């Protein structure tokens, strides 16, 4: 319903806009559509941030994985304050924390650690702390944040039963938890593309057989099977090998979804005119697949991949939590959650559940991101 006939300038402007739209490449269109998906954008930003944290873990973590403070076992999260009101009422500015001292909880009749309100320890950025090798290469001891007193650790999220800083362990754990998602998805991707591709391209009996196999695999509840496979891994195996095997197990069960997507796209594209044209031109099947088909369903694959990563992360966390996935000294979010096995520990140190918060945030962010991508994957649909 037009209120008024648009003037020539507006017509010209709309025309140019239309031309730009028609001339824009596939990826430009995808980006434009993705930009409108607010939740997807936010999710993507958070996901990128979390991956950056994982990459720069050594520097961002207040301390190293091995570092522990015996006096700070089961330490509650330490406060981070900007202003301190002294006993005389005077205000003292500057980022600081309070060292923890043992106190006796008279109600619960047990010893706990509590911040000592009288003592101040300044907290600074880019301060020297535990020495480490950045990316295993460059020796340094500068951490993003830390106290100026080497005797007082900075435990912003509390500590575990050995007095190790939980925040640092969560940051290091991000490396394992996130990379296992990426590697697992990479392996599933390879399996899914090859098997789904064969199924979709050849069609007929092969397609039928592969589809039945996928259906059967999908109808088996995955967790019992995961537990079964994970229990095979001997306890004495080197941690790196365990990591590799767990990734493989996750991928072996997770490829079916991706194979479905690939097959679906293959079937949809096979009857497209530009594919028939390429075939009539005498292009080889490989050339048709790589040059004509893959570019036009790449966006769908990327969306499916980003939606598959959260599932892998959740599966790893669950397996490690049950004690049959990754094990210490490897630190992942699931391994950290092993400390929160029984209700007594959780009641005494509820902050041990915080690695779970990291899992939830990451999975949510990746889900929203993947959702946005999926909506944007086909920019030519209405």
């Amino acid at each position, binding site marked *: 319903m037009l209120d008024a006939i648009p003037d020539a300038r507006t017509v010209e402007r709309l025309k140019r806009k239309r031309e730009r739209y028609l001339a824009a490449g596939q990826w430009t269109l995808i980006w434009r559509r993705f930009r409108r998906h607010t939740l997807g954008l936010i999710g993507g930003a958070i996901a990128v941030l979390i991956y950056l944290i994982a990459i720069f873990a050594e520097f961002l973590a207040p301390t190293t994985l091995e570092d522990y403070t015996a006096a700070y076992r089961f330490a509650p999260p330490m406060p981070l304050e900007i202003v301190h009101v002294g006993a005389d009422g005077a205000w003292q500015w500057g980022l600081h924390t309070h060292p923890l001292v043992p106190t006796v909880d008279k109600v619960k009749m047990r010893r706990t650690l509590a911040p000592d309100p009288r003592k101040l320890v300044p907290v600074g950025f880019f301060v020297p702390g535990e020495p480490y090798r950045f990316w295993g290469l460059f020796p340094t001891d500068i951490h993003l944040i830390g106290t100026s007193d080497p005797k007082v650790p900075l435990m912003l999220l509390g500590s575990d039963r050995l007095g190790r800083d939980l925040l640092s362990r969560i940051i290091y754990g991000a490396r394992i938890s996130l990379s296992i998602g990426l590697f697992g998805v990479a392996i599933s991707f390879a399996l899914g593309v090859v098997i789904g591709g064969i199924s979709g391209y050849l069609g007929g009996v092969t397609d039928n057989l592969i589809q039945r196999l996928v259906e059967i695999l999908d109808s*088996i509840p*995955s*967790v*019992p099977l995961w537990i079964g496979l994970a*229990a095979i891994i001997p306890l004495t195996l080197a941690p790196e090998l365990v990591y590799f095997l767990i990734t493989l197990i996750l991928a072996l069960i997770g490829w079916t979804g991706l194979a479905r997507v690939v097959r679906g796209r293959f079937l949809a594209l096979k009857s497209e005119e530009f594919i028939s044209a390429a075939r009539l031109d005498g292009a080889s099947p490989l050339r048709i697949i790589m040059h004509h088909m893959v570019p036009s369903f790449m966006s769908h694959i990327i969306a499916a991949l980003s939606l598959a990563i959260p599932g892998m992360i959740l599966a790893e966390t669950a397996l490690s939590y049950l004690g049959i996935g990754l094990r210490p000294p490897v630190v992942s979010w699931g391994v950290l959650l092993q400390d929160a096995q029984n209700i007594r520990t*959780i009641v005494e140190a509820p902050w041990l559940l915080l690695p779970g918060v990291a*899992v939830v945030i990451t999975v949510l962010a990746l889900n929203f991101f993947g959702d946005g991508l999926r909506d944007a994957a086909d920019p030519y649909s209405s």
Partner: protein
Amino acid sequence: MLGYIVRRVLLIIPTMLVISIVVFLVIQLPPGDYANTLMSTMQDSGMDSFGFEALRKQYGLDQPLHVQYGRWVWGIVTAGDFGYSFKWSVPVSQLIWDRLGLSVLVSLSALVLTWCIALPIGIYAAARKYTVGDYLASFIGFAGLAVPNFLLALLIMYAAFSIFGMSVGGLFSAEYVNAPWSFAKIADLMSHIWIPALVVGLGGTASLIRIMRANLLDELGKPYVVTARAKGLGETRLLLKYPLRLALNPFVSSLAWVLPGLVSGETIVSIVLSLPTTGPLLLDALIAQDMYLAGSIILMLSVLTIVGTLISDILLAVLDPRVRYA
């Protein structure tokens, strides 16, 4: 209709065959067998390696793989004999049926709860598209998807313990654990089961809410809805009379992929909450390499899932004639 059902039932046979082979391979993969496990734990109890060889022979562990597989499957099919649990020293069938029953009960309760939550929320989200309520519904749905269910179980345990001072593990109160079945015991079970059911079901609600919302939105734009509205049908009746019934079909078919997820979730949650279902028994059996017990549990969980899927497919065919001829 009958043809469809027969075809669908026949398809189950190869499915079960493949699953039983996969399961058997999985439990056979670990190096060594139960005799080795026993040997390592009873090293110094004076039993010599000769004794273990005899044990191996007795349980048929010295036979080639396909013979062991054949015997196992044949025993199950012909006599309901799932083999022998080495760890518990009783036939597997004595151990698993009670626990399987409770597993099914928890999974089904979770399913019912999932539907009870997802259906109204999905309808609401579609009818009030792009309102605060709609966004809230999708957010809760997504959160349910993102929180690992063992973590949710832990959180509920923590909350129940620190706020109400009660422990929520298990399916029965202490006085009913070994009691024979009675109305009081069933009532006790019902008062416990909703927590694991809620924990297991929450993960599935997210996708169901989205499916319900999307399907209903598709229907709401169709001409027959406009016609009905033009004729003066009230909004509530308009919504419930036709579009909802059409949007329900995919809801029923979703059972096929919700069910494996529920069974998976039940396995983990039951381990965390130490429920007397198959989960903890399975974990124990796998760690002890009690292969027939572990294999039978995985097999039966898969079989029950497939039977559930079959039922949902038949239900769908009853509801929607188009499926029968597809």
